[in-house]
């Protein structure tokens, strides 16, 4: 592989071809792939700890340490309760005393995360990337200043700088807010709450509601809208809400928290409806903000938007030609695999001689509520907004086979949204067991413009839930352009 940087003779002037600030999903991927193209790369990251702060982070980033991975581990852990319930009608006799040891799970989870943290470090080392521990800040268009844990400051120059510092959970400004926790702490609580109050209707809120409920807590979920998961297909939102309720979570739509205070019984929670609850834990799952405040962006003149996210063009370049940004810090689509895609495209563009734009079309995603929701492409509402021809909606709501014996009153719901003019499937959603695993392949088919006819020509796998996606024969409804749902 030719070393492009050396050939044009410019590299000599800089310490590195690329200096990356932040070793999360996007930063690690960009570093590794750039090094693979022959670039000389350094990356800085804050010291490791499960709970992040201005001075705490860790190689692996949000996904590995405070997001996807620990969350999924807790979801696995909490899903067992439902399994125990389901097992009985299949003939299993379980003692009434099933114990759950939170400390053990927490410990095993931390071990796994430390293992992954080590793997990520090794990935970087093996790729020849220099790792620097400390807080990175901009010092100019080609200069980064790293404050190391001992307080010493080191400056590095680089031809390109990539900002991949991610984002952090945000708090709500209400009296007593300091009594609440964010998802960071929620993933590492010393004690398992018996009574949990969650504020927020996004995916983090519903995921933690499922987790704590599964571990035996009472859960009260407060959100502003009529349904949780704004932005998702309305019909699926209603399904998720119904399932959360069915699993014993108290939903409080169109309401919020106004005040928290400490009492002997726990945290006293006052709602805008005047209700009062007492909780062991109050979780704010009210959004995340890009980590841009302490980056000293002004030193290089890097622009941010109103939310504090770094503004980038389609190639992830900021307004300064030598400075780039990927991942949550740009607040485009805040998902690990998207940050990976952006990181890879950046490397190809800058070091691979192959300008590549990340493609945001038909990106599948999942909400790991219990049961989970997964979607790809457009919701019914989005499809109708963008429609130039009639939209065909196919839905299927069925009792999963396991529930026919277990007796669990929970339906799996699936939906395909089809453009009648092209027959292309432009949206797919599913809420039910295994939805995220099922949706990945559907995502491949849709990404490549598969038509409903091609779905139908695929033979089912029997008996599976997924086969329903290839056997939806009759249109549930046809929406004409301009109609309202």
């Amino acid at each position, binding site marked *: 592989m030719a070393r492009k940087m050396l050939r044009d003779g410019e590299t000599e002037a800089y310490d590195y071809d690329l200096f990356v600030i932040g070793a999360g999903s996007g930063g690690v991927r960009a570093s590794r792939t750039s090094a693979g193209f022959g670039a000389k790369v350094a990356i800085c990251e804050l010291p490791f700890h499960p709970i992040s702060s201005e001075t705490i982070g860790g190689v692996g980033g949000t996904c590995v340490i405070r997001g996807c991975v620990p969350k999924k581990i807790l979801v696995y852990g909490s899903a067992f309760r439902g399994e125990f319930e389901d097992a009985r009608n299949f*003939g*299993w006799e379980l003692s009434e005393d099933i114990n759950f040891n939170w400390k053990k799970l927490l410990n095993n989870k931390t071990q796994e995360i430390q293992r992954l943290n080590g793997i990520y470090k090794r990935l970087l080392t093996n790729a020849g990337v220099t790792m620097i521990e400390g807080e990175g800040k901009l010092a100019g268009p080609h200069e980064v200043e790293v404050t190391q844990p001992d307080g010493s400051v080191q400056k590095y120059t680089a031809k390109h700088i990539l900002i991949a510092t991610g984002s952090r959970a945000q708090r709500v400004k209400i009296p007593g807010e300091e009594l609440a926790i964010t998802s960071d702490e929620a993933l590492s609580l010393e004690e398992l709450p018996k009574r949990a109050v969650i504020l927020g209707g996004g995916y983090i809120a519903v995921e933690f509601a499922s987790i704590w409920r599964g571990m035996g807590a009472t859960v009260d979920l407060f959100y502003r809208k009529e349904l949780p998961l704004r932005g998702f297909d309305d019909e699926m939102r209603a399904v998720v809400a119904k399932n959360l309720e069915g699993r014993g979570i108290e939903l409080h739509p169109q309401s919020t928290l106004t005040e928290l205070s400490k009492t002997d019984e726990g945290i006293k929670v006052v709602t805008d409806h005047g209700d009062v609850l007492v909780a062991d834990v109050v979780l704010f799952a009210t959004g995340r903000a890009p980590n841009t405040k302490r980056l000293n962006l002004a030193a290089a003149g890097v622009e941010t938007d109103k939310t504090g996210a770094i503004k980038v063009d389609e190639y992830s370049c900021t307004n300064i030609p030598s400075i780039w940004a990927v991942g949550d810090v740009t607040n485009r689509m805040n998902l690990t*695999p998207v940050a990976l895609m952006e990181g890879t495209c950046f490397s190809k563009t800058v070091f691979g001689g192959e300008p590549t734009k990340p493609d945001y079309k038909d990106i599948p995603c999942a909400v790991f509520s219990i049961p989970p929701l997964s979607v790809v492409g457009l919701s019914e509402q989005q499809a109708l907004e963008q429609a130039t021809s009639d939209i065909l909606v196919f839905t299927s709501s069925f009792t999963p086979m396991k529930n026919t014996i277990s007796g669990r009153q929970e339906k799996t719901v699936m939906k395909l949204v089809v453009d009648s003019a092209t027959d292309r499937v432009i949206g797919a959603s599913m809420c039910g067991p295994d939805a995220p695993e099922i949706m990945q*392949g559907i995502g491949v088919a849709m990404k490549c413009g598969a038509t409903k006819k091609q779905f139908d020509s*695929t033979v089912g796998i029997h008996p599976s839930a997924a086969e329903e996606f290839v056997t939806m024969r009759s249109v549930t409804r046809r929406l004409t352009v301009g109609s309202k749902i």
Partner: protein
Amino acid sequence: MATSLGAPRLSLSPKTLQALRRTLPLSFSKSLHSKPLLRPSISHSPILLRLPRRRRLSSRPSASAGNNSAAASSGGDNYDFDLFTIGAGSGGVRASRFAANFGASVAVCELPFATISSDSTGGVGGTCVLRGCVPKKLMVYASKFSHEFEESHGFGWSYETDPKHDWGTLIANKNAELQRLTGIYKNILKNAGVTLIEGRGKIIDPHTVSVDGKLYSARHILIAVGGRPNMPNIPGIEHAIDSDAALDLSVRPDKIAIVGGGYIAVEFAGIFNGLMSEVHVFIRQKKVLRGFDEEIRDFVGEQMSLRGIEFHTEESPQAITKSEDGSLSLKTNKGTVSGFSHIMFATGRRPNTKNLGLEDVGVKLTNNGAIMVDEYSRTSVESIWAVGDVTDRINLTPVALMEGGAFAKTVFANEPTKPDHREVPSAVFSQPPIGQVGLTEEQAIEEYGDVDVYTANFRPLKATVSGLPDRIYMKLLVCANSGKVLGVHMCGDDSPEIIQGVAIAVKAGLTKAQFDSTVGIHPTAAEELVTMRTPTRKIRRNSSSDEEKVKDAVKSTT
């Protein structure tokens, strides 16, 4: 299931219709048969039928064209029915319903319900619902819990006393569900206006079926009688059970021998192992699942062994003996293993073509007793068709459904449709399960020569915390010249669910580059299928060594 009355023409109950039909004189069917037909007479050879039939079907007045009322189609043509289907399993029910929806008058006959099939017992729903996919999967669900109990320890769960399993509860609940399903299938037929006749159907002539002595005439006859387990004729075989019986045992086997290495054998091995029987599997070959991708065969064998199943390879059964205490011994070419409470044979299935009258009307059979059909599922007799396992093409429920649907379209909707047997995905509900679509590595190399093989073998997130030795194996086979994905194979949790969507992509002929352009869903196992960047090996027809190991990961890690 909605039980609305449906269209007015359905207002006669099947029983009433049946009664009416019984009173009709049936003898004229034969004379009808010999009257000059509108269609040109053509050879009965399935191969020669192909071209002329397409034209004929679109030009002749079909049973469906203009015949949208039962009265017209049943009365006007002097046949009792436009279609008489023998066998109400997956293929038969689908074909009957669709044909009825296209306006045909349809009857279907089926044997009385029983969990164990025989020459005189069956049941609406067929193998899939009563003795196959459904009860099997329910048993798989039941047995999987023991693995989940084990997994749960790593996630902090513990039990005062270990979970016990009550066999009777499971079997009772399973059978209640099967009763419910057979009822649903009956309703589906009823709502479609199909006449259901209980009894054993036998073909008398190309347009007549006898059900327990009563004669019914039909323009078309569809044979959809399925298959049945087959056991070798060795001494003591009367002590063995087949898969029908294995799904309906009154007690849990303490120690069971399963003879066979096919999907039924490995599925039952997983079921009994999970429900805490001691399981021994005897296979003739070195590995289970002949015909599957070689590495998948290795992998699933290893994983099953780790879960406590004991394999006895390259052992053929020779005799079964029953000792005085009632326990069974299995003698093989290598020795004798004793102390079994049950011995199950999962040694293949045979088409149910005996005593159907096929030979007498000239329906040709293959060597193994399957009905020979052309691409439209037509037999060597023009008016007789066959779908599903009885034709021994690909013996899967969704394939029988496809064949049944295609048959109905071809015959009653003026839309000649060939079932497409390419890239049919399938699953094995072993523990862990397998999902696959397209070619195996061996087939891909044979067919394409130059193949890039992408593999992944990893510990899923759940196993890293449970501490169990569970792993997932995936393989993607890519045509080196076109980039087309030729086959996808997976063994591990959720494989059947994961492969379904992938199958749409494979069926649509997508390339590896298109897989790679899909963003992953994180964290899932399935995302691995769209993030396989580096081929494990590149196989080239012309290279001196068969396999060129690719070690230079950097080259394609972009």
